[in-house]
């Protein structure tokens, strides 16, 4: 049994609830003990330092301190949460002034941070703490014959001064996962590019064109499904897929999975358990394919 402090982030608890449910499903099957953090605040949505840089340190330092109090590492399921917590962690560990300032605030709420917590995104927690081989053993369905396009997104790869899970120039963690589950990873250029979510409320047309072009490229390379480790990317890629199709004036029809749903399917999760009814682009076709791949 591996235990983490569980930090799902705000979107996964609301509009992206299917992600939270899928995560709990696979945690149960893989022997991961997720300790909830009801006091943890939003990480800031990736923009809070544009409001006040110290606020970013304080609210995320608090989240880190809460985990440290229980002697736990934090597991995240969202790219932006991962980057934000990692950046704050790096700063608190390396910059004594920032640590002092943050601990002054934390002291007032009965907390302290000493830099002991590690932040792990679930993809890399599974790779490093459980192992893709163990995952393979536990799989009950194979993803054989399914072309899966990994969409890393930005924030679990860059900047590598903060997030150090994978090679930012040529990451392979996702591909290794897909292969371990029997699927066929699709190779395409935009797998490490941006989905555009950060500007979706600022300039929708240009923002959705980024997601649109990534989907289109994957489609051209015969992808059956795309997978993303981030609920924000998922909103861009799935919920906004119809809007994206319009902004690039192309036909798009690619189902988008959350990473834990990909693992969940392999571990035997069904349509309802994975929350597929909440998706814009239907997963029925994929599930039909998978049904035939009993291991």
């Amino acid at each position: 049994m591996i235990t983490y402090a569980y930090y799902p982030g705000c979107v996964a608890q609301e509009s992206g609830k299917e992600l939270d449910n899928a995560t709990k499903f696979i945690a149960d099957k893989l022997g991961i003990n997720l300790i909830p953090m009801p006091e943890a605040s939003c990480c800031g949505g990736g923009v809070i330092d544009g409001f006040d840089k110290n606020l970013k340190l304080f609210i995320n330092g608090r989240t880190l301190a809460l985990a440290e109090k229980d002697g736990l590492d934090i597991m995240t399921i969202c790219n932006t949460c991962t980057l934000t917590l990692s950046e704050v962690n790096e700063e608190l560990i390396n910059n004594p002034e920032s640590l002092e300032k943050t601990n002054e605030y934390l002291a007032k709420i009965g907390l302290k941070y000493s830099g002991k917590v590690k932040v792990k995104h679930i993809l890399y927690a599974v790779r490093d703490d459980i192992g893709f081989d163990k995952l393979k053993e536990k799989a009950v369905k194979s993803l054989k014959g399914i072309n899966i396009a990994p969409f890393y997104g930005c924030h679990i790869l860059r900047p590598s001064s903060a997030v150090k899970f994978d090679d930012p120039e040529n990451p392979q963690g996702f591909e290794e996962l897909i292969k371990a589950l029997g699927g066929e990873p699709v190779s395409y250029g935009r797998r490490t590019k941006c989905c555009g979510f950060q500007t979706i409320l600022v300039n929708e047309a240009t923002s959705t064109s980024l997601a649109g072009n990534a989907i289109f490229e994957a489609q051209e390379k015969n992808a059956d499904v795309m997978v993303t480790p981030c609920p924000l990317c998922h909103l861009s890629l799935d919920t906004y897929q119809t809007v994206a199709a319009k902004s690039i004036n192309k036909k798009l029809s690619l189902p988008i999975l959350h990473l834990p749903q990909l693992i969940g399917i392999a571990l035997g999760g069904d349509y309802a358990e994975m929350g597929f009814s909440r998706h814009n682009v239907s997963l029925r076709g994929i599930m039909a394919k998978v049904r035939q791949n009993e291991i």
Partner: protein
Amino acid sequence: MEFKIRAYRFNPEIDEKPYYKEYTVEDYPGMTVLNALIKVKSEIDGTLSFRRSCRSAICGSCAMKINGISKLACKTQVGPEIEKFGIINVEPLANMPVIRDLIVDQESFFDKIKEIKPYLLGQREDDARDNFHALKEGEKISQPVYYKYEFQNLTGNNDTPNCILCECCYSECGGVVGNPKYLGPAALAKLYRYCEDPRDNDKNGSRLVNGSKPDGMWDCVHCQSCEEFCPKGISPVKSIVKLHERTIKNSITFSAGAKHVVSIAKSIGETGRLDEIKVAFDSGGISGLINDLPMAFGAGLKGKIPPLRLKLIKDMDDIRLAYKELDLEEK
């Protein structure tokens, strides 16, 4: 040991469309991609065209895509690239039209640099005290005083004045890909450099106001590529976020981007969480919501719309205290 270079070739004068040409080169320890290109040009194919000058990572001429990532050819060692990718692919930088082979038209990039007014504003040209004075015998000169702290954000190793205008960040920028009119990381980093300069006398905050207009600082998608791939260790995205902070603290919040950030801060300050509906409304306004109605309706049918009132996090007072300590409470 031999290796292959696969170069993007295109001469609009004679080629209908671009193609790739492979060359085989003998390497040596410490060989850079630029060394290899020069060898090819000098010994095998003089038509291979690329820009280069200093070969010591200071002039910015030789930026190009090497195995898909924008880098300086003079600084990129052949050995590690071959180890990782098995070949050296060279292509012209992205986001700019190709003139020929590995040479791109940089006019749009330089136009954006010019647009942010990259020089000190509000300088008095006619101040008599500043008259040029050649020293006579026995004379000494006095100099104006600027202390270290005044320049502290401009004199570090990875600070914005070190930018060599190589365009690697611009080529990797996610924002420019989506919006070709977006100013881009280098121009905005330069804007930050001038905002930070204690000698800049920008009355009325015109720099921040102009920078907040469409295609300006709020069009950054935060993809972090500029920081990751800058060969001089500069982080344009962190400079852009600092511009955001400065802009909001100066109450220049007419832009959707600023409203978006302020809304998120407000949401966290009241509930400890990100209220998706409220933030969407604050950022895009009524027109934004109306525009997104079809998408939202579809999402609503699937149960994706969050409740109108979010539950507060536990120990919400902790967050309120943080806002209070930092003097960020809503007045």
